[in-house]
């Protein structure tokens, strides 16, 4: 919601993690001053104050909501796939870990 020169966005924390909300605010700090405060119930309020008056607030709001979903999906994916990733990365570095082990044995 645009309020004067500010953008006030309601975030339902029953859908989004606090980390996703914080990271999203952080992404916009090149263009806006940001704050995140609790409202009633599960609602958090993100307030974005543009650093330049010429910024299109509607565009920023749309981008903010897209970014919020992107950040939340990363968190959900991490919950689902972090074990898979660990296994893949471990496999990727297996040759070098093996080489390190051989060096230690030689010493």
């Amino acid at each position, binding site marked *: 919601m645009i309020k004067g020169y500010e953008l006030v966005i309601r975030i339902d924390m029953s859908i989004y993690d606090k980390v996703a909300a914080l990271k999203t605010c952080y992404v916009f700090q090149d263009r806006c001053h940001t704050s995140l405060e609790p409202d009633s119930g599960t609602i958090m309020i993100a307030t974005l104050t543009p650093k330049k008056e010429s910024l299109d607030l509607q565009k920023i709001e749309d981008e903010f909501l897209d970014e919020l979903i*992107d950040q939340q999906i990363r968190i959900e994916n991490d919950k689902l*796939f*972090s074990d898979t990733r660990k296994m*893949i*990365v471990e496999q*990727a*570095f297996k*040759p*070098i870990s093996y080489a390190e082990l051989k060096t230690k044995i030689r010493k």
Partner: protein
Amino acid sequence: MTFKERAYSILPCRFMRFGNERLLVNEAGEFIFISENDFARLRHYQLDIKDEIFLNLKTRHIVTDTDPALPIYLLATKYRTKKSFLNDFTALHIFIITLRCNQKCKYCQASSEDETRTEYDMSIETAKKSVDLVFKSPSQAIKIEFQGGEPFLNFETVKYVVQYAQKLNKVYRKNLKFVVCTNLLGLNDEILNYLAEHKIWISTSLDGPKESHDANRITRKGSGTYDIVRKNIQIAQDKLGIDRVSALMVTTRDNIDKLNDVVDEYINQRFNSLFIRTIHPFGRAVKEKLGYDVDSFIKNYEKTLDYIIKINLDGLSFSEQYATIILNKILTPFATSYVDLQSPAGTGISCAVYGYDGDVFVSDEARMLSKMGDNRFLMGNVHKNSYHGIFNGKVIRETIENSCVETMPLCSECAFQMYCGADPVRNCSVQSDLMGHRPTSEFHQINYLIIRHLLGLIKKNDRDIMNVFWSWITNRPLKEIVRSKRR
């Protein structure tokens, strides 16, 4: 229907709508197209296990009517084969022999320096330390690629690297190969004889006919280079053999709607393949606005692919390399060694770049980012850090952890996952984020559309086109493929 009443189990797979059918792909990249009706029956456990469709799905380990342990074991074996490129840590080592260049190409991503600036040459000391590091790689196959600038301008260091690496290899006994990436302007008899004697391959650049080539590939004084490049390609092919000289092109706004002419030029120059490469959004390419939109690239790519297929059907063996890489991923159980379309990305684990000053980067694009002040992909320096400090450090680990498509948003569910890859350096350069944002990424869009186009052609199952594809994959003449299928 309870779990016990089901006649079969569904194994892990990814799927997507594909025209009026569904594409299903298993964890190892094996695929099948089925009708929407069969897909509904599959997921409601209504398929008859004697039906042909069930048996086709069972062959691809998408369903099983027996203990799942065996199909999962088989899938795991196939998965390991597809990911076997991980065993070659690190196979490709790129040496930036000098930043000096006798050309000033409009799309140069390497930030070249004037020919007189010898302070940008790799010293013998840096070269020695770099080669020492290369031979610490566990990979049995080692390819050292000389890049620049123009490597012929510091040919003494090229010679030193070759001789020192060959000396070390008497002990290490690796499969050692050298490639020099050169614009060929400085080719002379002495260099040519050396390349022949030491079996060094040439990779040069050719953007098409004179008009397209000279639009971007110019000398520092601004004149076109086509005539001398054409002459020197022929000289090099005659001396080293046609197979030892290859060329790469860059698609720019100057040749994007003339790609068929680029194909003809490559054929005229006795090359047997073309890699239709997009321009990289780095360095001067951005400044000179040489890019184009995704739709324009895809439209021209598909048109040119049709043209190349027709050339093959008319009797000439000629392949498009990017399609060949993807077809390999789709149609064979094997891994490819192409580092730009891997998961995890090839950055650092499959390819490393040694700067003229000894800085080691995860890729050449990472070196370019460093030149622009962003050092996040700098793994270390050959003078300061150990092999394990560089290749098992925080930079490479963070890059790899963020380049597994199996875990990335959108990619994790994508049916094309096994055919695709990640480019964390490009993501950082274009989207300021290691993982990137697929819905707005041109890298994602281009790969998605090319894979979809190739799968569409495979789905048609046209005998002639499939024979052409298999001739590309197996690197055999089309006639031989046709003959072997008749037997």
